[in-house]
């Protein structure tokens, strides 16, 4: 599904140059659940943003389903992204002005799904995440665990092939965290590929494989399953 080769990303500010990704290469197969670990600042989020087509690399190759996307323009990236990729963030990133239902509905709106169909799919998803009774609440009226469940619902409502999660349990207590991990595991068992950045060895054990990074490079890979 994903194959990257010698991927480089360099951030330039007035005087400093930060090499966030330093000739990084690896591959992720369809249906895999991969955890990415490493110390703070080693480039994990940078990597995830590039894999999610939110940002482009400075050099190297990035094959997504066999297509070279490293230098796709904004419009092509947005198009590929909304059809194939769902995101889950540490800080949930729900839109405060919209209700739970409206938040989950957004990706479908941008995909051009019809209103009745949207309603059906959003309700189905809210049911699955056991948050249906909160459909008309606003994010701020929910607990962290509930908010993250909404965020997961939103990430998967358009049935993406790939889910990218950046420290999805980082703001949650352990029981809410475990609940989210169970959700991700379920999704993975139904065939969704998952790449998750985490600082928690405990969460990483839900995955099949752990990629460990240091200074923008992979150092080791542990295969768990």
């Amino acid at each position, binding site marked *: 599904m994903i194959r990257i080769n010698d991927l480089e990303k360099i951030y330039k500010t007035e005087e400093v140059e930060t090499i966030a990704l330093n000739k990084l290469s690896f591959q992720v197969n369809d249906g895999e659940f991969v955890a990415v670990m490493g110390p703070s600042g080693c480039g994990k989020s940078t990597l995830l943003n590039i894999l999610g087509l939110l940002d482009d690399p400075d050099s190297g190759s990035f094959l997504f389903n066999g297509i070279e996307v490293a230098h796709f323009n904004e419009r092509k990236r947005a198009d590929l992204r909304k059809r194939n990729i769902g995101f889950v*963030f540490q800080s949930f990133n729900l839109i405060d002005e919209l209700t739970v239902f409206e938040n989950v509905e957004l990706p479908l709106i*941008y995909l051009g799904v019809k209103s009745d169909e949207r309603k059906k799919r959003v309700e189905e998803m809210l049911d699955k995440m056991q948050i249906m009774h909160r459909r008309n609440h606003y994010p701020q009226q929910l607990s962290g665990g509930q908010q993250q469940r909404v965020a997961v619902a939103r990430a998967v409502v358009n049935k993406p092939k790939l889910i990218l999660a950046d420290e999805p349990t980082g703001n949650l207590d352990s029981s809410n965290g475990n609940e989210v991990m169970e959700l991700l595991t379920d999704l993975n068992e139904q065939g969704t590929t998952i790449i998750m950045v985490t600082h928690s060895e405990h969460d990483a054990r839900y995955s099949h494989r752990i990629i460990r990074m240091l200074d923008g490079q992979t150092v080791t890979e542990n295969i768990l399953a």
Partner: protein
Amino acid sequence: MLKNYFKIAFRNLWRHRVFSFINILGLTVGMTAGFLIFLYVRFELSYDSFHSNTDRIYRVVSDIKTPTEVIKAAGPNGCSLVSIKLSTQNLPKTIASIENKWNALIPARPFSYYFLDEFFDKQFRSEERLGKLFLNFSVLAIIISCLGLLGLASYSTMQRTREIGIRKVLGASVPNIVNLLSRDFLKLVAIAILIASPIAWYAMHGWLLDFAYRIGIGWWIFVIAGIMAVLIAIATVSYQAMKAAIANPVKSLRVE
């Protein structure tokens, strides 16, 4: 869908109610000023509006060419007042010759004359001064409310940076975002138009009451002024919206 749309619109307005209020007020002032300028200009341009009983003035087109005939038409039994359009070259001589003709044809009535422009000048000078002052203030008010709109546009797009980032992550395209932001502004402008129209109408109506003859205030004036306000709003907002929509979502989400 439409119901939902209005629901969200009002929710947004309510959420930022102080801000919405100030902004709508500003827009209202600006638009009222705009309406008034418009009405004032139309008033100035309207034909013969300075006469009392304008509605009873008719323009008679005839073949009469010479001054003699004109004065004859006035005649001893005709009207007592004749308006004559003169060439301003050698004015004293022209007036003297008209006086001669008058005295010869209608000796029973003494000849006296005045210049219409001076007459109107006297009568309308104070109104005119007021009008000019007013025009200047109105232009100022419009400029200020445009600046306000621009400020509001930058402020609220800045506030929504994160939201825009999230929407882009979820697949919103640049036109989607520009649409979203512009639409929200047009909603504000539409509300301001609704509030400004009756105020402008009332103010203009009050002012016009002082005149013997008044022009009517047609509904289409509000339509034209409304369209102009919307165009100005689009011009001020589209730049900000474009800038926000193009920004890299990764950077937008970094700002917490």
